């Protein structure tokens, strides 16, 4: 397993701490944190770090790929600008909707997954890839509710979108685990539904327990079960790709501003050891 492709999400709270890190791993830039900055510290720090990093991937939350509202040209233009400046190896967002009738949620809301939603998402992914001029990847989200009208499991839905558009899949292992547990399914069985050939990037993160279900908070340590699931994914990826070295970026996400970078990096190192 080439750990050079492992990395962490870049968070503003950690900017000063990165100064003391000699070898910067792959960094995942949050597109929405940079889109509306024309200058200033966030862009400055990001530019300083990117040149020292092993690689860069770009991740967004506001594209609204599954929504009915037209795709935002200003959002896409901003994204294209970031792609042009930072040259990320993967550009991604989520399989979800984030707005309706112009009202924003800033949340990753689950889609009804059926044939008409599939056609809708395929059409929009094509439009996004044409606009950006690069491959786009979509991430599976954590779900807490399920729709009566959903007919296609998320893994199959994403795999079909990938097959028809050529887009990639950002496989969030924690989200697979959370959604499976919330609906009493086996996470390993859910993983089987993804076409691993299309996986371009992997996310790993912590979750928390909320009442009687799991909630994707990104503010806790990654649990042992999720590390085990990641190990299983990496083994399957390796097999699916003919035992080639798997150079898919594996990004550890931690959105808790109170977690020091040093702690995130220790967890990241321990995680790598668990996956050997």
């Amino acid at each position, binding site marked *: 397993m080439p750990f050079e492709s492992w990395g962490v999400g870049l968070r503003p709270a950690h900017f000063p701490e990165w100064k003391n890190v000699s070898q910067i791993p792959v960094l995942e830039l949050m597109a929405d944190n940079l889109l509306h900055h024309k*200058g200033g510290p966030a862009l400055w720090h990001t530019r300083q770090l990117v040149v020292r990093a092993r690689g860069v991937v770009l991740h967004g939350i506001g594209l609204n790929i599954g929504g009915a509202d037209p795709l935002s040209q200003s959002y896409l233009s901003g994204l294209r600008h970031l792609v042009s400046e930072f040259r990320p190896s993967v550009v991604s967002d989520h399989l979800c909707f984030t707005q309706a009738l*112009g009202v924003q*949620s*800033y949340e990753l809301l689950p889609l*009804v997954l059926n044939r008409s939603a599939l056609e809708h998402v395929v059409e929009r992914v094509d439009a996004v890839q044409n606009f950006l001029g690069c491959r786009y990847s979509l991430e599976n989200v954590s779900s807490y509710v399920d729709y009566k009208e959903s007919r296609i499991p998320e893994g199959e839905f994403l795999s079909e979108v990938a097959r028809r558009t050529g887009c990639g899949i950002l496989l969030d292992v924690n989200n697979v685990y959370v959604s499976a547990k919330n609906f009493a399914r086996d996470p390993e069985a859910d993983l089987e539904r993804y076409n691993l050939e299309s996986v371009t990037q992997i996310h790993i993160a912590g979750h928390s327990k*909320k009442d009687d279900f799991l909630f994707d908070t990104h503010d806790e340590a990654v649990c042992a079960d999720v590390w085990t699931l990641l190990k299983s994914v990496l083994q399957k990826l390796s097999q699916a790709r003919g035992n080639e070295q798997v150079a898919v970026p594996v990004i550890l996400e931690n959105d808790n*501003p109170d977690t020091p970078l040093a702690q995130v990096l220790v967890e990241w190192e321990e995680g790598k050891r668990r996956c050997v």
Partner: protein
Amino acid sequence: MFDYQKQFLEWLTALDERTPAESDIGNYLNESSVYRLNAYQESYLGRVTASLSETIFESCEHLFGKEFVAQVLASFFKAQPPTAESLTSAAEALPHFLRTLNKESRDALLFADMAEISMLRWRLLTSVDPIVVAPSASASLSELRLVQPAAFVAPSGHHSLERAWECSQAPHDEEFLPEGIFVEQRGVLLVKASAWEFSVVGVPQALEVFVSSLVEGRTVEEAVGCLEHEGSDELADLVQQMMAQLMGSRLLSL
């Protein structure tokens, strides 16, 4: 096909005040998971309040308390569901909302003023970095259009962008500031002098008209013109000297 998305947003932004089971979006969900809708609403409110408090309204939180700021933001977004892609842009109507909400509430009016100043500061920190001007172009006022004002408490002096930003993140308390730097409690003029640097100077009270003109969006030249218009030729000279000094310090750093 997409009606459920509209219902979901209405539920999320608290326009639909019914319980999850009674809500319109509840009809689209399998019964066993309907109660979990609350988690989305809590996450939405938590996200909008935390994101804004951690970025723009940090000083408001120090002044009014975390709970008060969270309550105000929740009321604001309930009254005006956000439509801007950027959460920070969505908050731009907050001062107006606060001023019309309760004209008798001193805290609401003070918060409105603080919010406005905080947003001015945020716009400054995220605005286009000015192009560094060649030294030969230094002295004339027309080149000083690069100057952007901000009326927030900041350490006086000449700082790297990074240091000024770090200082602005600290609570406005002298013990948190780097040694040798003092907090100027009066109006200050913050000059974005080059791509990576700020200059910050305290402005004498007599120059209030000048600072106000800048805050209203006038260029330095126009703001000096306002002083001259009011018959304050001496003050206009003082401003010219001050600005030349500021721009001089920028040149030294090139």
